[in-house]
């Protein structure tokens, strides 16, 4: 009898110790954790399969053509076609985005964070920014088609395309990324502690002097990171360009075209080349050239992202 009690006691003691020491494995908990891990790993697996599929498709072109593929212009012959025209178009669009969206966006962020009184108008601006950030990109294309194309034509830069040129594309893309620039810059400015500002006011600086000498330099890394990511977005965006008349077929500038002729003439962009090659009837374009163009596009985007991550780590300030 006494022995049996002690056996039960021993078993109880073991069970209590096991559960206190956490050696108990609950199947439910393990299954849950494995399930979560499977979800996460499937997203990563999709990324790997996608990149592998595209790189395998791109390999023959990359091997045989190398840099020639990057520096050749559009052509109807798959042997000589390259992405240079698209890279130039995308670079001009990115330049216009830097010239238009960055100053306006950072300015708007400074106004919202530093100046704006708490009134109806400020709320409207705030609502407008947040709603614009969610507007589908193709709707910005429609905006560009009715307003910016006419605007470019109206100020005499229409050229042979009657305004459906790279200038209108740059303005449209700037409007598209403006809300993102405002939101990321506002976050960077908000992260600057108020003691930094007070230090400036304490020595008699005006508001603008404080912003110029204290707030903007402190927020600069954040703004820069946001800017680079914005450029990546502008580089990959396709849909609005299709609406505002980007060339989806073959074109070439005449040899005696001036800079203005080229800026106001037909244009294309790197992602648009991906789109138009993937629907060419000649299978050489869709099977080998489109993946090669995607590889160039992704290489540019990933380097931009890498630059952004570098800036974030290099200049990040902890207050």
């Amino acid at each position, binding site marked *: 009898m006494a022995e049996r009690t002690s056996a039960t006691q021993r078993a109880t003691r073991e069970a209590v110790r096991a559960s206190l020491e956490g050696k108990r494995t609950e199947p439910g908990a393990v299954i849950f954790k494995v399930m979560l891990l499977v979800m996460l790993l499937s997203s990563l697996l999709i990324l790997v399969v996608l990149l592998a599929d595209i790189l395998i498709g791109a390999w023959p072109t990359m091997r045989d053509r190398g840099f020639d593929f990057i520096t050749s212009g559009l052509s109807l012959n798959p042997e000589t076609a390259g992405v240079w025209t698209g890279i130039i178009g995308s670079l001009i669009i990115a330049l216009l985005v830097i010239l238009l969206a960055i100053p306006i966006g950072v300015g708007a962020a400074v106004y919202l964070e530093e100046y704006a009184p708490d009134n109806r108008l400020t709320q409207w601006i705030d609502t407008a920014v947040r709603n614009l950030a969610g507007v589908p990109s193709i709707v910005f294309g429609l905006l560009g088609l009715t307003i910016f194309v006419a605007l470019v034509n109206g100020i005499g830069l229409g050229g042979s395309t009657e305004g459906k040129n790279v200038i209108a594309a740059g303005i449209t893309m700037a409007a598209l990324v403006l809300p993102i620039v405002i939101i990321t810059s506002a976050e960077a400015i908000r992260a600057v502690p108020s003691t930094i500002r007070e230090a400036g006011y304490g020595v008699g600086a005006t508001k603008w002097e404080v912003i110029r000498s204290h707030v903007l330099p402190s927020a600069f890394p954040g703004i820069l990171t946001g800017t680079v990511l914005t450029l990546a977005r502008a580089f990959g965006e396709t849909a609005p360009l299709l*609406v505002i008349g980007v060339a989806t077929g073959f074109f070439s500038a005449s040899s005696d075209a001036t800079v203005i002729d080229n800026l106001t003439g037909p244009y294309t962009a790197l992602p648009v080349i991906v789109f138009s090659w993937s629907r060419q009837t000649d299978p050489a374009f869709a099977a080998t050239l489109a993946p090669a163009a995607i590889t160039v596009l992704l290489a540019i985007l990933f380097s931009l992202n890498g630059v952004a991550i570098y800036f974030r780590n290099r200049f990040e300030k902890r207050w």
Partner: protein
Amino acid sequence: MTTTTPKIDLSGDPRRRTKERTVRALFFAAGFISIIISIAIVLSLVGEAWTFVKGLIDEGELGSLWSLGWFPRRGLYDLRTIIVGTFVIAVIGILVAAPLGLGAAVYLAEYASPRARRTLKPVIEMLAGIPSVVLGFWALSFIGPEVVQRIFPSAGVFSMLSAGLAVGVLITPLVASVSEDAMRAVPSSLREASFGLGANRVTTTIRVVLPAAISGIMASLILAFSRAIGETMVVFMAAGAVGGALFTVNPLDPGQTMTAAIASLAIGTDQVAGEGLAFQSLFFVGLLLFLMTLVLNSASNRLVRRFRETY
């Protein structure tokens, strides 16, 4: 008895004040541009959309908004076709993105060690950085033939299913990052209270963290749905039906969405010009799309603000 205070001007250099006012005005103008762009979008859409509706009324053709399918060049503007097509693809996208994105978010927020998080999060962000035209190409060259047609041999290369799957891949990182933010915003004191009562990590996650973060999670799903509705390139390249589409709800058929309808009309703009109301119909569809995403985004914004206020 009156003491006269000496007049000292404390307002500073007038040039400095003028400069302050100028700078303030410039910043205000930069902020106001967002309102101007918003108004410009609405006006540019409403103007042409009204021309479209008025044109249909004048011709007595309002019935063409409810007909066999979406064939704008033949004067058939069946809205059902493109709205249902949009929703079929967006629902497939959410069915893919919700489990993948939420699973990844829960793992990153509740299970992953800080070190694992630092390596896994950039990879998810990398997936988010892939442009939609690339996913469109991949849907066409891989998901269509290698996935959809293997499982459903009756499906064509173009189908709403393969477009929907690719849209799902596209919006997964969005679901993951927004709902991870929501879960990380849940204060750790709640978790500690639950652990203190003897609950394990699964119970804590399911019974404490998820309910506390539910508004943020809902916001991420609504936002992802809105993004799926507004997604153009994947659908335009992989769902087929470029010229037009018959009404269908079968995901294995090619289909047309609102965005793809706009894009395919716009690409052929030159042929469309002067051909009835096809060009104007583009803006009518654009207006519908704008209003739908506006409603969804406002709902999502409201939910996000709620979880920010609670904690």
